[in-house]
């Protein structure tokens, strides 16, 4: 197992470099927006990856509520943390893209707004994990994760309807896409997913180590003939 991680890391790095090459060199330049549009290859896959991670968080939280396995809790924690970061990338690249093209930083467009709300929900999840006391955290966080995940469809649906009533400029654009662009997009998405997986794995290992240390102290405390183990 120990050898797999470095190998996969190298593979992921290679894939990321290839994806960068695809995005910046191979993909054709967009007609109206020019080279600025290339940020699209980061803006979109980061969101898709984040949602995969949040789906994992949802599944892990439900698994924890049913089976109470600590591993499920760790997976939930890790996927939420990494997902929040990826979604932040999406939220930041949105305005960076919008400004040169449309002259505005933010438009409350449907996708960006919904993404912002989703991001807020998962940040509140991370805050709950930080502010609750040790024994409760996995259970409370899992409950919040379920509620948050169920809220996402409502978020997107309500904001979508709101925007059809009150239209605004749309960042990200719709409509048909050149197949070479789609190719670059998918490569970048694959690279992002691999990268996200590696980061999650690292974070998981870190969390597991921390919990193992705590457990070791607790075991020492359990077995000590007199009193708890002094640090």
């Amino acid at each position: 197992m120990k050898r797999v991680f470095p190998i996969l890391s190298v593979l992921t790095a290679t894939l990321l470099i290839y994806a960068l090459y695809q995005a910046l060199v191979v993909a054709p330049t967009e007609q109206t927006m020019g080279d600025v549009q290339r940020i699209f290859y980061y803006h979109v896959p980061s969101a898709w990856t984040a949602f995969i991670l949040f789906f994992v968080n949802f599944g892990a939280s439900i698994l924890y509520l049913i089976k109470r396995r600590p591993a499920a809790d760790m997976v939930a924690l890790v996927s939420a943390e990494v997902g929040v970061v990826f979604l932040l990338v999406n939220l930041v690249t949105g305005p960076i893209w919008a400004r040169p093209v449309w002259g505005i930083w933010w438009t409350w467009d449907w996708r960006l707004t919904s993404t912002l709300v989703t991001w807020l929900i998962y940040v509140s999840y991370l805050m709950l994990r930080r502010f609750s006391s040790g024994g409760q955290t996995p259970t409370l966080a899992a409950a919040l994760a379920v509620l948050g995940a169920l809220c996402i469809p409502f978020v997107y649906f309500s904001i979508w309807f709101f925007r059809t009533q009150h239209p605004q400029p749309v960042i990200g654009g719709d409509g048909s896409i050149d197949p070479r662009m789609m190719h670059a997009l998918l490569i970048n998405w694959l690279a992002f997913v691999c990268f996200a997986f590696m980061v999650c794995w690292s974070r998981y290992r870190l969390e597991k180590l921390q919990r193992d240390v705590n457990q070791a102290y607790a075991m020492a405390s359990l077995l000590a003939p007199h009193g708890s183990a002094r640090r």
Partner: protein
Amino acid sequence: MIAPTGITRVTLLKDLRLEWRSKDAINSMLFFSLLVVVVFSFSFDPTAEESRQIAGGLIWVAFLFAAVVALNQTWAREIRNQVLDAYRISPAPANSLFMAKTLGNFIFVSVLEALMTPLFIMFYRLRSLGPAWQLLLIAVLGTWALVVNGTFFAAMSLRTRSREIMLPLLLFPISIPALLAMVQATADILNGEGARFWIVLLATYDLVFTTVCLLLFETVLNAE
């Protein structure tokens, strides 16, 4: 045999009685609601035409703030003297407690809304051009949406650090679809259109979240 609805009713009555006895809480809540309306009136000039158009949104934000203050304190009573432990060891089901608290909060927040609304109508010279009965329906559905999640998150926050700030931190993001619905529906009706989509959305939201909160409450109550 203990009927769960009986326990809900008894707990609700007990809470209402306790609320009534600690009149300080009620008085400060009422005054707070009045202050919110007045402060909003200074921030969003009622005489400007634009303000009349966003009055629907303003009133719901005001309700939200009042609700948060109310929600925070209805659970506070249960952790004083660890009374919640007495409930937990009894055979009474956790869901009865949740329903009782939610209903109590619903009543409490509705009273605050009933007091703030005439003030808003007066200050902003609001007139409804659309079906006014729909406004009542939205008020009920919207308040329930805030209160059911609010009661749940307030219970969650009971043993966290910074308990009072945790509640809005958790409640606001998840309430956004419901808030959007309430605000838009109110604005639409005041402007003379129907708000059927928003009402259906709110009703669905209420159904989903009430169900899930009921399913998860016992777990959350007994989390250590």
